[in-house]
């Protein structure tokens, strides 16, 4: 049985102009996101990993329209987000909500919790104050806040409780997709465990789909069905989280995983960390983007690498596979494809 995708992103590209020329005209661009394709099905979780500055936050912000895309398509439930106008666009937008890393700065300190939680509903309009308050109480209960918390201000809460408030607010419009940009990286591990348990519970109860950015690979392996690894604004490897993270195919994914702190392996030697400054994203490299840092670089790496289904050198990636078992694994590296690595 085919499940229609909830979110379909095609060829999404984001460039930021760098002013500097005469009359402030842009002379060059930061290529933050470069032709990204991805799909999320209802109730599914997709994780995004990759080093700082590789374009993760820009990608998700372009998906929900917080950042302007340069080209490409974002289709939600069969409707093109950027083509839609007015009320229709707002409706599509409300199907996606975002939770940021820092609950401190994403919540207005002047508002009581019940107002914060129901703000998206208030913006949508059509609900009385009493109805909003009643809904706030329900939402608060579902994220583990107590009724007496409703009238307090955000600064009276711990980091973990503030993140609960942010989650309650995000689910207030009954979205299908929640975008989580490093939702627990500012929290202690014991509090992280509480928030992750809460998100998994909400997913089971509400059938939410998640798009989660995280630097914590073991968290992504735990939380996500699939994972996409980004490098310089491109997806370089994608597939079922356990498969990709337990047996990475792309040289970059391997380096990334070798450097993840773990109780299970010792600190990598310097040679394994592939030191180097992040490549410049103002002038995109020719050929494979990872070539400068790749220890496997060889003949053929000067050609642009397509993201190709792993183990199938000819085919391209099918974006709507029939079922979970058939989720494709894809890699953007001809040597990994050839089994040379």
């Amino acid at each position, binding site marked *: 049985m085919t499940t229609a995708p909830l979110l379909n992103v095609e060829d999404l590209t984001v460039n930021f102009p760098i002013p500097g020329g005469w009359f402030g005209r842009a002379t060059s661009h930061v290529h933050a996101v470069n032709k990204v394709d991805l799909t999320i099905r209802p109730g599914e979780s997709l994780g995004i990993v990759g080093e700082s500055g590789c374009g993760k936050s820009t990608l998700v912000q372009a998906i929900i329209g917080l950042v302007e895309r340069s080209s490409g398509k974002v289709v939600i439930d069969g409707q093109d987000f950027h083509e839609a106008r007015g009320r229709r666009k707002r409706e599509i937008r409300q199907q996606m909500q975002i939770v940021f890393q820092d609950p401190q700065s994403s919540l207005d300190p002047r508002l009581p919790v019940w107002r914060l939680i129901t703000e998206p509903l208030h913006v949508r309009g059509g609900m009385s104050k009493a109805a909003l308050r009643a809904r706030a109480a329900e939402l608060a209960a579902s994220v583990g806040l107590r009724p007496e918390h409703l009238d307090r201000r955000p600064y009276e809460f711990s980091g973990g409780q503030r993140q609960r408030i942010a989650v309650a607010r995000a689910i207030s419009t009954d979205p299908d997709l929640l975008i989580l940009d490093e939702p627990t990286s500012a929290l*202690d591990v*014991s509090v*992280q*465990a509480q928030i992750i*348990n809460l998100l998994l519970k909400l997913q089971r109860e509400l059938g939410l789909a998640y798009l989660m950015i995280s*630097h914590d690979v073991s968290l992504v392996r735990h939380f996500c069905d699939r994972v996409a690894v980004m490098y310089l604004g491109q997806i370089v490897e994608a597939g079922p989280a356990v498969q990709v993270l337990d047996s990475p195919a792309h040289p970059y994914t391997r380096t990334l995983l070798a450097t993840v702190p773990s109780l299970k392996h010792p600190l990598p030697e310097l040679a394994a960390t592939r030191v180097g400054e992040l490549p410049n994203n103002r002038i995109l490299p020719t050929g494979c983007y990872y070539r400068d840092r790749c220890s496997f670089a060889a003949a053929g790496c000067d050609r642009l690498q397509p993201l190709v289904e792993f183990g199938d050198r000819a085919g391209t990636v099918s974006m709507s596979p029939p079922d979970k078992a058939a989720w494709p694994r894809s890699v953007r590296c001809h040597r990994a494809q050839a089994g040379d690595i």
Partner: protein
Amino acid sequence: MMVAASEILKPTGQKPAALTIDGLSLEFPTYAGAIKALDDVTIEIGASEIVGLVGESGCGKSVTTMAATRLLPEGRYRVTAGSIRLFGRDPFAMDETELQDVRGKLVSTIFQEPMSALNPTIRIGRQLVGVIQRHEAVSEAEAERTARGILKDMLIAEPERIMRAYPFELSGGMRQRVLIAMAFSCNPGLIIADEPTTALDVTVQAVILRLILDRAKRTGTSVVFISHNIAVVSQLCDRLYVMYAGRIVESGPTRAVLEAPQHPYTQALLRCLPERVEPKAELEAIPGTVPNLLDPPPGCFYRPRCPEANDQCFAKPPSMAPAPDHIVACWRRETIQPSIKASEATQ
């Protein structure tokens, strides 16, 4: 094998310890009462040892080391018990000149936010030369040569360019490498690294940890490494101390503590890590929250969250006592099994 606490705490080398903190209690008086930030903290950092200080935010890691280097705001805190020896000297008995001397020559601190430790208006090269000349009577040219050398040691490819740059022109990872270069530049006996990689991403973090480790091992520098990340500490440190609410609850060789953690808090801390359970399974969160340090509970501070607590735990705080291969502050250490699951995590 049972080992006496004093045996485990003894520094490994012949040289005297870099830092000894003995029974330190410290509080911050506020209008709402005294925040009891440290309670009876005992720590020893031997010569050439790399020692971790782990625990959740607010447990007192930074206050412990800042007290030792007298970096806490003067007049805003009170030491209510205990003593500190930094290379055999009492930091509380030092005047400002002595302190400057110690902070520059014997001890260097690397903080989490490298930007705040650098002067934004002065080029990197000048700052490095300044630090070197403050501690060694060398010519400008010689100091510059030394600076280039230590930047190279930090795997900075173009030291010339970096020396001409202002701090804001560098990435966070690069700035942190410059600060580590600075910290090592006057050959200190002790480096205090307070969450030096928390703001960085994992690839850069691995590089920085390696640079600290290799350089410290080569020069015999002692390191106190503060982190809330147990995995990072396990990769770097010979020994570790686990702190909870201003007290040390468990300590010993890293492997011994992490393979057979015996304090219920250490066990719980390891159990909430996602790397130890099946995907999507419920994580074992620790119930409740850390105690309010204005009014901590009587007896053991972990008691309100502890599944093992009994009457004895209400009466009096437990003191550090030997467990196999390491030491634990828990009344029930004889009956609590070292967590089996936690040992799986380190295999």
